[in-house]
C-alpha cells in the first residue's frame, strides 16, 4: 500500500485543478494552443494525430496522406478512447501524463543523484531544493502548462525519458533501458541519451551493490537490450499497421530527411528552405552529426556526473533538434532545478533569463506579424527564434561552466568564492 505524501497530493491536486480549469473553462484555448507553431511541430502535432486516427479507424493507412508522422503505437492507444468523449478523455490523459512526469522527477530528486554521484560529491550538495518544490517548478512552469493544454505527442517522449532516468537512479537498469527504447521509438533523438544512461545505470548499480563489473560488458549487455527493445516495438508497429513497413519511412525518415519545412522554434527549417538541392543531404548529415557529436565529448569530460550529462544533452537537444518545441525546453527546465547548488556559480543568469523572457513575449508577436498581418517576413520570426536559441545556449554553457568549476573546486578548495576565469 503506497503512502501518499500529503504535500505531494496537494501539489498534484492543485496542478490538476489548474489544468482542468484551463481545459474546460476556456474551451477555445486547447485548439488555440494546438495550432501554435511553438507547441506543435509536424512530428508532434495533435491535429495530425487526430487526422491519422481518423484514417486508422476507417481502415485506411494513416501514412498515405503524408501528413501523419507519428508512431503507430500512439494510434492504437488513442483508438481505445471512444470518440464521443474524445476531447475530455484526452485532456485527462495529458493531465495524467504530466503527473506521471512529475512523479518520476520527484523520484530523481529524492535519490540525491544530482548532488553526489558515485564518483563525485559536490562540496555544495546541501544547497538543494526540496523534491516537491522541484515537482512544483515543473508542474507550474508556464511552458509545461502550455504544452499540456496544447497536447503534442512529445509529452509521451518526455514522460518516457523521465521514467528512464528515474529507473536508472533507482537501480533498475532493465526498466530504464526499456523506457528509453520506448522514448526513442516515439521520437528518434533519445537514442543519443543511451551512453550517459548506461553510465548512470552502471554507476548506480556499482554504488548499490558495491561491486564494479567491467563497464564494457555492462555496456554491451544493455546496448543489445536497447536494440532488442527497439526491434520489438518496430515489430509490434508492423503488426498494428497491417504488416507493412511504410511507417518507418513516414516516421523516422521525416526526422532524418526533413521533408516538412513548417516553421517551428528550431534552427533547421530556415536553413533547409534555402539550401541548394545538391547540398541538402550533406547538410542534413552535418546537422545530425553536430547534434550527436556532443555526446562523446560530454561523456568523457563529465564522466563522474552522468545525470548532468543527460541534463545538458536535453538542453542541447532543445536547441539543435530538427523539430524542437516548448516541450523540450520544459523538460530541460524540469531537470535543471536538480542542480540548484550550481546556480551561484553561474555567471549570466539574469542575462539568460531576460533573453528567454524577451523571446517568449516577442515570438508570438513576430509570428503574427509574419503570417497573419503580412507586414513582417520570415526573418522576423527566425530572428526571434535565434534569440531564443541564444538564451538557451547561454544557460547550457553557463551550467556547464558551473559544473566544471564545481569539480575543480574539489581539487582547489581555496578558490571557493573567488572570481575565476577560464583559460
Amino acid at each position, binding site marked *: 500500500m503506497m503512502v501518499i505524501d500529503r504535500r505531494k497530493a496537494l501539489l498534484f491536486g492543485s496542478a490538476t485543478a489548474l489544468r482542468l480549469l484551463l481545459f474546460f473553462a476556456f474551451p477555445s484555448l486547447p485548439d488555440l494552443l494546438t495550432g501554435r507553431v511553438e507547441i506543435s511541430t509536424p512530428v508532434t502535432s495533435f491535429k495530425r494525430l487526430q487526422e491519422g486516427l481518423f484514417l486508422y479507424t476507417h481502415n485506411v493507412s494513416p501514412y498515405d496522406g503524408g501528413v501523419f508522422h507519428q508512431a503507430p503505437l500512439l494510434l492504437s492507444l488513442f483508438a481505445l478512447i471512444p470518440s464521443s468523449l474524445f476531447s475530455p478523455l484526452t485532456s485527462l490523459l495529458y493531465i495524467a501524463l504530466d503527473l506521471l512526469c512529475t512523479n518520476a522527477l520527484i523520484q530523481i530528486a529524492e535519490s540525491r543523484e544530482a548532488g553526489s554521484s558515485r564518483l563525485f560529491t559536490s562540496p555544495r550538495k546541501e544547497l538543494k531544493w526540496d523534491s516537491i518544490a522541484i515537482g512544483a517548478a515543473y508542474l507550474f512552469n508556464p511552458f509545461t502548462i502550455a504544452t499540456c493544454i496544447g497536447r503534442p505527442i512529445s509529452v509521451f517522449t518526455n514522460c518516457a525519458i523521465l521514467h528512464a532516468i528515474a529507473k536508472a537512479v533507482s537501480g533498475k537498469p532493465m526498466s530504464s533501458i526499456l523506457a528509453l527504447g520506448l522514448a526513442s521509438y516515439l521520437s528518434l533523438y533519445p537514442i543519443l541519451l543511451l551512453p550517459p544512461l548506461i553510465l548512470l545505470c552502471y554507476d548506480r548499480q556499482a554504488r548499490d551493490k558495491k561491486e564494479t563489473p567491467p563497464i564494457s560488458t555492462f555496456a554491451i549487455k544493455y546496448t543489445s537490450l536497447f536494440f532488442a527493445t527497439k526491434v520489438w516495438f518496430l515489430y509490434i508497429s508492423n503488426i498494428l499497421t497491417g504488416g507493412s513497413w511504410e511507417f518507418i519511412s513516414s516516421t523516422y525518415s521525416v526526422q532524418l530527411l526533413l521533408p516538412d519545412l513548417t516553421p517551428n522554434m528550431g534552427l533547421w527549417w530556415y536553413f533547409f528552405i534555402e539550401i541548394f538541392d*545538391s547540398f541538402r*543531404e*550533406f547538410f542534413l*548529415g552535418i546537422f545530425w*552529426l553536430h547534434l550527436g557529436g556532443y555526446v*562523446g*565529448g560530454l561523456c568523457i569530460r563529465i564522466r563522474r556526473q552522468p545525470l548532468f550529462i543527460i541534463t545538458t544533452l536535453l538542453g542541447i537537444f532543445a536547441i539543435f533538434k530538427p523539430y524542437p518545441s516548448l516541450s523540450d525546453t520544459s523538460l530541460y527546465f524540469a531537470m535543471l532545478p536538480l542542480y540548484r547548488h550550481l546556480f551561484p556559480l553561474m555567471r549570466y543568469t539574469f542575462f539568460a533569463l531576460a533573453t528567454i523572457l524577451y523571446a517568449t513575449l516577442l515570438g508570438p508577436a513576430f509570428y503574427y506579424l509574419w503570417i497573419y498581418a503580412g507586414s513582417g517576413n520570415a526573418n522576423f520570426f527566425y530572428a526571434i527564434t535565434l534569440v531564443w536559441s541564444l538564451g538557451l*545556449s547561454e544557460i547550457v554553457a553557463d551550467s556547464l561552466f558551473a559544473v566544471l568549476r564545481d569539480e575543480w573546486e574539489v581539487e582547489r578548495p581555496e578558490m571557493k568564492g573567488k572570481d*575565476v576565469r*577560464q583559460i
Partner: protein
Amino acid sequence: MMAPGTEFGEGDRDYRLTSPAKSSKKPPPETSESIRVRGLVIVSFWAVVIFLGLPVWLWTTSIHRARLPLQEMLDWADGKACKPTFPLQIAIEAPFLQDAEARHLMRMTQHALDDLNEFSAHHLRLRLAKSLSSPSGRNASIPESQDLEIGQVFQSYEDLDVRDDSALTVRLRAQDSIQAARSELQSHSTILDVAYAPNQTPSVSSSSSALATFIANRLQELFAEEQAIIAYILGQSAAGIQSTLHSPYVSPATAPGSREVRSRPNRLINPEMAARLASRMTRSLKYAPTYHITMSLFTPSASPSSWQIESALAEYLTPLLDSISAVSNFTVDTQVQFHATFSPSVHAPEHDADHGVWTLQEEDLSGFINAAEWPLSPSIGAGPTLNFVLYVPDQTTSPLVVKGTQASSWLIPHWGGVVILNPQDASTTSVGSTLSKEAIRPALLTFSHQLLSFLGAPQTLPSLPLQLQTLTRIRAASLLLSASSTMGSLARLTVALPSIAIPETVSTAVDATLSHLRYTCNALKEGKFTEALENARIAEAEAERGFFEKSMVGQVYFPDEHKVAVYLPLLGPVGVPLIMSALKELKRMWASRKAQRT
C-alpha cells in the same frame, strides 16, 4: 560552446611581468588526469568529424554518373557500327514463259540493273515469283486501270503485302499488237505491267535482250528518286561526321571510315539534284512521332453553315492516315469560321473576263491566310500542327483561282495547305446550306497529296503504295541516322562536361536506343522495312528522351567559388575551435615529447 578540457586561473594575470611585489601565482600544473581527459575529448570530436563527417561528405556530394557505352555511341554516330543497306525485292511474274527462259531473263535483267546502279547501299534484287494463279482470271492483255475507291485500294494493298514482301511485282505479258516493250504502273497497286512484242521473247541462249534492258531501265527510273533521297540523307550524315572530325573529341581512327562513306554518295548526286533535294528536304516537315492536323473551313459570308466533315474524313482521309500510321501518328481536329475576310494587304480578287474567273495574284498567296483575324492556333495537340484550310469563296467572286496558273490549291511549307473550293452549284452558297461529303471529296484528295509531300514522299512515283513504301524506307534511314547522331552528341557531352550528373534513366535510354538501332540495322539488311521503321522510331524516341533529361543540367553552371560560400558559413565557426584545440594539443604533445627526450 566552450572548448573542452579547460583550466582555470587567477582573475588578473596581467600583473605577472610588471610588479615584482605583487607577483601573481602561476596556476598549479595540471594533473596528468585532466590532460589525458582533455586529449580524449578532442579526439572524440575529431573522431566524429573524420569517421562520420568525411564519409557523409563524400557520399552525399559525389555526382552520380551512370556508366555509358561511350565508344559504342561514338561508333554509331560515326557510321561505323552500321552501314545501312536497302535491299529491295522485286518479284517477276512471268506465267507465260518457261521456267528456264524466265530465269535467264531474270539473270540478264539483274546484270543490267547492277551495271546501272551506282549506289551500292540501295539495290534491287530480282526473284521469280511463285507461280500464282492470276486473280480474277485475267487474259494476256494489260488490264485497264480501274478507278477503285480508296478503301478497296488499301484492302488489296494489304493483301499483296501479306502474300509476298516484295517492293514491286513485274508482270510480263506478251502482246501481239505492239512493236516495242511498254510498261504501265497502276496507280493503286505495286504491280508493274510490262508488255513485250512477240519477237522480244527471251530465249535461253541469247546473251543480251532488249526486253531485259528495258525492264532494268524502267525499274531504275522508278527507284531513282528514292535512291537519290537516301543517298542524300546518308551524305548529310557523312558531312556531319566530317565536321566533327575536326573537333577534339573524336579519335582520328574514324577518319578512314567516314572518308569512304563520304565519297560514294557524292559520286551519285550531281549538284543540281543535290540542290533540288536540299530544298525539298527543308520544305518537308521535321520528323515527329505525332502530328496534329487541323481542318478549317473559312467562308467570307455565313454560308455554307456546316459541312459533313466527319463522314468525309472517315471515308477519304482516315484510311490514308491509318496506312501512314507506321511512319507517324495523326490526330485531326476541325473548325468552321464564318465571315472570314481577307487581310487588308491582300488585293481583292479581279475579274478575268477571258476565262470567266476571279483571280488572286500570286504575290498575295502568302498573305491569304489572315493570321491576325483567322483563328488558327499554332499548337493544339501533341506534336507539330498542320493546317489545311478549305476556302469557299463568296458567290459574287466565284470561281476563284490563282492568276496565271489557274490553280485552286497551294502548299505553305511547314504550315499546311489551302484549297479553294469553288462551288459547283448555287446550293452550296445559299444561306444555311451544308457542304456535302461529295463536295468536300476533291478537297480532301488534294489535301492528302499535300500531306504526302509534307512527309517527304517522292512525287514522281505514280503509285500510292509505292510512295508509302518509299516513305517507310526514307524515314527508317533518316531516323536511324538521327538517333545515331544524338547518341554521338550525348557521348561528346558526357566527356566534355565532367561536372554534370548522369542519372540512371539516361543510361537505360541509351541502352534501349542502341539495342533498337541494332535491330533496325539488321532489319534493314534483311529487307524488313516496316520492322526497321518501328525500331527506328523507338530508337529515336528513346534517344530524345535520354538526351533531354532535365536532371542532368542542375550542376552545370555551379562555379567552384560558390562552394566556398556554401560550406564556409556553417563549417567555419564549427571548425575553428576544433582546429585551434587540435593545434594546441599537438603543440603540447610535441613539447612533452621533446621534454621527455632531453
